[in-house]
């Protein structure tokens, strides 16, 4: 009897790995709503990533450069294949396409200002080009997306480069979503949609269907822009090797590959977590495809999806990228998931607004609601004022500067006078998975899983 009581009083905490807390939450939510979850940001699960690689700095066998004195070039040129006016950037770190609609006009303005100061480019998004971002961005890449929202000839002529978006890392094979609460009057007008509608962007382009069609589409865009502007082709990382070859065949000047960590403002969670491959696994496939076509250095490779630090940038470049593109990191620099926001010369607590969304700072992925507590992913007039373009631009500029300093520091340590001289031989992997995906040896060995050696 006593023994039984004792057993009953023991606090049971044995969890299930199959049905863990988050899985139980998932099923409860599905049972309550009958709808898949839609959320912002990219894949949250742990994936093989740049953190699983380390640099082999110079020592006796290699000769380093002085970290603080000797020059290390970062100039990056994109679009040298066909365009009369290639894009020239001071640093190989660009700002990824994020739509006006998902982001406020002030955010687009802030990103443009920071990019211009640092000599890099910004990118429009699914929703057209705003006058704010055109004004503030010296170099602006104009996206041609399946929805064609706000895609018009005047803005094609105003753009510095065009990017045909086939897909994105958060949802290769899917179209975007912008829930009704973010479709205010201006967003609705730019997209020619009824205000407040839950908008589902198309997953296919309306006027072409395959690589041979894409070649003709790219030709049309070149004709419209008088062969001046570089044409990028962006897709989510899946069958990267073949897709890169097809994009080159179709006439791309620049190929942009977005890994599954790439963010979104609103996509089905099942899509974000279960479709696409990690950024780390995409780069070498792309580089191999370019090398086999003898297009390395002729068609530039831009990589995005979970690039956060100067080390990530350096590793992407070492594996063969010509530049990287950052979306979510820029939003975090602006204050995404910060517990406070800066307005009228003072910090204010955003805690109550996070609480209203049912989250705490650091765990927010509620971009899709338009209730961003720090005024970034919103179209609400009140919330939007929480991100002052000038203050936002300062933080993004600082972030970009930090990344670039880290990048050049690592390049110098590897003995490189130019960040584009970083090479796979400068890297080793800490895990077998990363070694196989990045095709660099496991640290301390000469083993690259999957290679014939």
């Amino acid at each position: 009897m006593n023994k039984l009581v004792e057993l009953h009083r023991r606090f049971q905490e044995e969890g299930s790995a199959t049905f863990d807390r988050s899985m139980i939450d998932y099923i409860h939510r599905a049972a309550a709503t009958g709808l898949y979850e839609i959320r912002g940001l990219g894949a949250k699960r742990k994936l093989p990533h740049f953190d699983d690689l380390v640099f082999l700095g110079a020592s006796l066998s290699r000769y380093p450069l002085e970290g603080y004195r000797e020059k290390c070039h970062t100039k990056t040129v994109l679009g040298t294949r066909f365009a009369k006016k290639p894009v020239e950037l001071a640093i190989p770190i660009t700002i990824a396409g994020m739509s006006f609609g998902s982001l406020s006009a002030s955010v687009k303005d802030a990103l443009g200002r920071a990019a211009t100061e640092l000599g890099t480019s910004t990118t429009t998004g699914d929703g057209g080009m705003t006058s704010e971002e055109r004004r503030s961005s010296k170099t602006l890449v104009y996206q041609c997306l399946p929805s064609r929202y706000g895609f018009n000839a005047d803005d094609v002529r105003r753009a510095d480069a065009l990017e045909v978006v086939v897909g994105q890392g958060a949802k290769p094979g899917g179209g975007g979503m912008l829930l009704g609460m973010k479709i205010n009057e201006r967003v609705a007008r730019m997209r020619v949609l009824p205000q407040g509608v839950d908008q589902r962007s198309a997953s296919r382009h309306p006027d072409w269907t395959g690589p041979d069609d894409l070649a003709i589409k790219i030709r049309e865009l070149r004709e419209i822009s008088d062969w001046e502007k570089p044409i990028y082709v962006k897709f989510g990382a899946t069958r990267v090797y073949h897709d890169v070859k097809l994009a080159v065949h179709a006439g791309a000047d620049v190929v942009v590959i977005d890994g599954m960590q790439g963010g979104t403002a609103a996509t089905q969670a099942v899509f974000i977590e279960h479709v696409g491959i990690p950024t780390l696994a995409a780069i070498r496939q792309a580089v191999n495809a370019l090398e086999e076509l003898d297009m390395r250095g002729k068609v530039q490779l831009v990589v995005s999806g979970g690039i956060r630090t100067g080390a990530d940038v350096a590793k992407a470049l070492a594996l063969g990228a010509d530049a990287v593109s950052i979306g979510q990191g820029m939003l975090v620099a602006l204050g995404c998931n910060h517990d406070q926001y800066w307005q009228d010369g003072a910090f204010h607590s955003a805690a109550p607004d996070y609480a209203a969304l049912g989250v705490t700072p650091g765990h927010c992925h509620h971009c899709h609601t338009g209730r961003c507590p720090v005024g970034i992913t919103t179209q609400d007039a009140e919330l939007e004022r929480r991100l002052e373009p000038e203050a936002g631009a300062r933080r993004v500029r600082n972030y970009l500067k930090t990344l670039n300093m880290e990048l050049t520091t690592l390049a110098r340590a590897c003995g490189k006078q130019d960040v584009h001289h970083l090479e796979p031989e400068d890297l080793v992997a800490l895990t077998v998975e990363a070694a196989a995906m990045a095709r660099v040896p496991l640290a301390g060995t000469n083993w690259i899983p999957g290679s014939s050696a």
Partner: protein
Amino acid sequence: MTPVEFDLRKRSVRELNEFLHRRLDGTRRVRALNPDGAHAIAVGINAPIDVDIEGHAGYYAAGMNQQARVTVHGNAGPGVAEGMSSGRVHVKGFASVAAGAAAHGGLLVIDGDASLRCGISMKGIDIVVGGSVGDYSAFMAQAGRVLVCGDAGDALGDSLYEAVIYVRGQVKSFGADAHEEPMTEADHAAVSRLLAEAGFAHDPGEFRRVASMRSLYNWTADANQEY
């Protein structure tokens, strides 16, 4: 003023477009001879001129047109007048898939039939088709009007937003969220105007109106996988 002629057997589409973009210099009319199905003929024009394509055109004829009046004296390939925002494009023959795709404005007239996805993602253009249209026409059409003097194929107006379709003949099937609605006085007036502008003599009373039920506008559990 005699028209400027470009014989596309002797000069490239690039030269033609370059001329149309930058060297018009008061030119009122341009004739493109022997187009032979070339792609991207007369794309990206932003001037009130007349362009005659004297034969069949390939993909994207008059793509992203602004202001110009472009006539294809033959058939047009995929995406004719895609992205157009103003002006008028007239196809004397038949049009292939995605005619008027994602176009913001202006008038597209197709004397013959149009293939699949006519008016897909359209954003304000008016399209008048003298013949019939293929499956998935006006797919995700956002704004503007499609007037079909013949029949429509399967899934007409699938995922339609605010665009309106007028059909004179049979509709094989409606797409998700599209249905027939009663014609109002305003609809009759609109059909009369479009017919007159396009040069067709049909009785406006013969047309039926197809528009969105708007039941997919907001995302709810009741939508039952229509998404």
